[in-house]
């Protein structure tokens, strides 16, 4: 099987398990994000790929070749570290050419390659600068150019954008994504920022605080069909409602009956389940309307930030959040009676 394959990987540090039962297949040329809260083992997983750690159990294969025990310096992977780890005693050009010099590539080729790479990351003309003379964004680009110098088989990024301010970070996200598409190189990015993961990746690997992989899929798939309550809550925001299964496509919350899209396998009548509904799927009506899939309550708070409007409803103790565009904003104010409509197709049932 071509691509990167994790077979039953487990990594322990003493008695602490950093990653367990990881089985993944990452196809060629994709931009993959390891996404999860801090301490979930995503960086450990990346370091296992880079060869900076060895797994306690399991194998890692790249294009059917077992690389589990290959030392880091023989893997030909490019890695960008969270701290960037640039060499402060070398100039920009020397940093970029470090891997070329190690491989004893002749000076003329080195110079040409440095020029190409600096051009690629838009830093032409800064070859002789010292690292300390660069801004945060420029250092970022040097680290990227340095990692790409040997045309690596894998491009690994460990939260490289976390130190940048919000605006620059978004710019770099787009830039990195375009760079990856242009080079067609298999890339793994570690991040705890779900927005970053959604923006950049073809494939998202969601890891949870139990150090397991919870879900693998395209950003939209994960957003629309979270596999469990952790994913539903971690990716974007979700209204998570405890309820009971009452039929093939029906659940009950208190006295309210809700029709849902689908019931997960193994759930029978009477089983307690969790209903997940995205805020933007909930419509708020400024009056009380009876019927299925409807909750009645009072508007607790309205947050209008210009680009979107969030309405917090209190439906007899059940808090619900709805989000809409300014155009579709329902005509309600704090304290008003209102109805929340939860369309069946956006009601996802998860096992509790």
């Amino acid at each position, binding site marked *: 099987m071509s691509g990167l394959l994790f077979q039953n990987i487990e990594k322990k540090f003493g008695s602490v398990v950093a990653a367990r039962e990881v089985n993944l297949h990452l196809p060629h040329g994709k931009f993959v994000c390891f996404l999860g809260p801090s301490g979930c083992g995503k960086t450990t997983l990346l370091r296992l790929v*880079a*060869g*900076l750690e060895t797994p306690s159990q399991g194998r890692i294969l790249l294009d059917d070749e077992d690389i589990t025990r290959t*030392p*880091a*310096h*023989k*893997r*030909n*992977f*490019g*890695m960008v*570290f*969270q*701290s*960037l*780890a*640039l*060499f*402060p*005693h*070398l100039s920009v050009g020397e940093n970029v050419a*470090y*891997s070329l010099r*190690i*491989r004893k590539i002749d000076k003329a080729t080195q110079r040409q390659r440095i020029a190409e790479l600096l051009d690629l990351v838009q830093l032409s003309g800064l070859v002789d600068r*010292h*690292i*300390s*003379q660069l801004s945060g964004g420029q250092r970022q680009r040097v680290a990227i150019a*340095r*990692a790409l*110098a*040997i045309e690596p088989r894998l491009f*690994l990024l460990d939260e490289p954008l976390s130190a940048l301010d919000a605006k620059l970070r978004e710019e770099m996200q787009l830039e990195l994504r375009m760079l990856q598409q242009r080079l067609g190189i298999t890339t793994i990015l570690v991040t705890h920022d779900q927005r970053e993961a959604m923006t950049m990746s073809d494939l998202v690997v969601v890891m949870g605080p139990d150090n397991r992989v919870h879900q693998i899929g395209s950003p939209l798939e994960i957003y629309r069909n979270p596999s469990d309550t952790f994913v539903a809550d971690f990716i974007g925001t979700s209204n998570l409602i405890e309820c009971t299964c009452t039929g093939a496509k029906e659940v009950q919350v208190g006295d309210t009956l809700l029709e849902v899209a689908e019931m997960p396998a193994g759930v029978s009548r009477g089983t307690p389940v969790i209903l997940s509904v995205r805020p933007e799927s909930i419509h708020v009506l400024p009056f009380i309307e009876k019927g299925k899939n409807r909750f009645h309550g009072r508007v607790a708070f309205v947050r209008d930030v210009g680009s979107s409007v969030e309405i917090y409803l209190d439906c007899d103790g059940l808090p619900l959040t709805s989000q809409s565009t300014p155009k579709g904003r329902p005509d309600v104010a704090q304290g008003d009676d209102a109805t929340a409509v939860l369309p069946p197709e956006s009601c996802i049932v998860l096992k509790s």
Partner: protein
Amino acid sequence: MIGEKPRGLRAHLPVIYPALMLGIFFVVPFGTMVAVSFFHRQPGAFYLPGFELGNYRALYTALFGRVLVFSLFLAGLSAAVCVSLGFPFTYFITRMQRRAQVVWLVILLSVLSLSEVIIGFARSLLLSRTAGLSNLLVWLGLMDQPASWSPGFMALLLGICYLAFPYTVLVLYPPLSRLDPARPEAALTLGASPLRTFFTVVVGSLRNAIVAAFVMVFVFTLGAYLLPQLLGRPQHWTLSVLITDQAIYQSNMPLSAAMAIFFMAVSLLLVALTMYAGQEKRAAGP
């Protein structure tokens, strides 16, 4: 306060005490020594105030030159040995777990609590023919008969390095423990072997710390007085021994003062040169 010049007596109050102490215990004695180096020696007595360059001219002897060169050589070699052993040693300590690091640092600090005299005698005993290490090697069958290794140059070098090594580690420890562990890792992912990583990245990016440690041990060893006499032969005596000999036993204060001043000037020049050489390809920033 920062960037503003202190004004008035009150603002200067905190520095008066250290300034006074520095004046009494450093500036005045040093000034006295500089002055004495130009005074006239009165044989059989002390010295007479005056101004003459004869004391400095008297330094121009083969003995002084040889001892000066030997002292500088010994200090330079000790510094080189200490730094080249201390740097990798400290690097490995800083990569250990916190608990292990503390144990190693405590061991090193306990070496500092030993007096130079104890170290000197312990070394001379340890390297002697009658009771030294060579007996152990004979017993193990590695040597035919016990040998005397002290006094001698190697014994002296060993003693000085033993004394200076903890200081070297303590000087190197802060910069090495601050070294971003990702930096050598980055070199590994870029294809450098662990050994090459150590030399190109760890040594390379800590050049300033290495120069600082070298200069520290160099200066520290220049003043060696006791160990050369305990562990060395007369040809291994340093300038400090010669100066003491002139000052105490020959009662020639002006000449010994001139020696000391000249020695200090040469050392400062060498230190300045070393710093300059170290800074030439200096990395700007952290």
